[in-house]
């Protein structure tokens, strides 16, 4: 048999626990009503990639494949090609002919962004990346490219 003091302590412990749950009953729940209410992401959140463009619309990516080389999950596949001289796609000599990420493999570590020498690769706040098939989770360059910036008349001196 436990002593009286021990029993009293046990009962006190139960009362303490009950008070905790009772106090929580009147607190605001922490639940986020997700599809209706979106979370506020930290500014440096690593979400889906984006391939940036220069202000003149040319791609920043030069097809160097450093991102694919550094990727610990082997999620990125890049195939570079020579820029066509009459209609350049990027500013360098080469551009990325194929640039795909497999989002089933990607671990969102951001090493690719670190490795990118031209700051072409960025990670955005896009996190809703669910798809119905495995094949659909492989995002191609077309899906990840930043849209061509609208031409500003003030910038008309720039080439392209």
């Amino acid at each position: 048999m436990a002593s009286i003091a021990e029993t009293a302590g046990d009962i006190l412990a139960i009362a303490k626990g009950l008070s905790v749950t009772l106090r929580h009953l009147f607190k605001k729940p922490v639940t986020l009503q997700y599809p209706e209410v979106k979370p506020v992401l930290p500014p440096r959140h690593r979400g889906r990639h984006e391939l940036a463009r220069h202000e003149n619309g040319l791609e920043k990516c030069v097809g160097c494949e450093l991102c694919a080389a550094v990727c610990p999950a082997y999620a990125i596949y890049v195939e570079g090609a020579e820029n066509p001289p009459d209609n350049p796609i990027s500013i360098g000599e080469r551009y990325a002919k194929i640039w795909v990420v497999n989002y089933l493999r990607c671990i969102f570590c951001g090493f690719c962004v670190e490795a990118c020498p031209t700051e072409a690769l960025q990670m955005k706040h896009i996190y809703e990346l669910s798809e119905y098939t495995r094949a659909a989770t492989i995002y191609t360059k077309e899906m990840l490219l930043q849209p061509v910036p609208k031409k500003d008349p003030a910038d008309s001196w720039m080439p392209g």
Partner: protein
Amino acid sequence: MLDVVIEAAIKSAIVIWALLTAFAYLTLTERKVMGRMQARIGPNRVGPFGFFQPVADGIKLVFKEDVIPAQADRIIHTLAPAVSIIPAVIIFAVIPIGPPVTLFGREIKLQIADINIGYLYVAAIASLAVYGIVLGGWASNSKYSLLGAMRSSAQMISYELAQGLAVLSVILMAGSLSLNRIVELQLHGLWNIIPQFLGFIVYYIAGIAETNRAPFDLPEAEGELGAGYHTEYSGFKWSAFFMAEYVNMVNISALVTVLYLGGWAPGWIFPPIWFLLKVAFLLLVFIWLRATLPRLRYDRLMALGWKILLPLALLNLFATATVVALT
């Protein structure tokens, strides 16, 4: 004669409807209140504030496949949920929820059957509830079900003793087994919770154990038994077991109200309201305890029942008997 039968039939229909609705909305209340206690919201998708969640749950459960294991005893497996739910519902027949009212020039008691053996009937029927669980566990032919059922029978029989002894003190004070008489005495004097505080504590704890509710939910221990006596049940038969559990919660709350909290006292305006408020409060305590306390270990459960509650109830009985004999 016929009018008595019709009256009883109407009252029975109302009580069954009320108990089953109470079961449905008790599940919603439990999920909501427990959710808030855990800083969550709880179900809120079906209808406004999740009000139709029990309806959705019911439809889901009815349409679920009714699995009977190949080695199970088919007849008993099917019968067990019924054996479990019937005692739960018929206990309420003797519980008075208010003083008699006059309706259509007829005096109607707010109780289906005012029998003078009152609590004896409750104790007898409540003991039957264990059969549903034991038969369900045995008929499933699964070791987890059987273990859950064994635990449950041991637990329910152990706690019935303490519960019976606690009630005996109240019966001694009232000098009657009739629940009406017990309430009447409290209407004019002190509520039994004051002179019988020890008995109240013992009765309520034993009541929680009787209904297999947390922290005494060992028969349903998900972690160790994979659910316990209802492991092999699905669909509507599974929900019948839970119907029995929740209706028993209502029963225990109603009995505590009648025995210790003065029934419908103080009885202003509309007496049944007082009764229902007290029952609702006790049900919230059930939920509150579940949201707070972890499950007891099996030996501790038995020790609490036999070594603490039973001696306390006996002590209380001795003290009450002495006082009653001297006055």
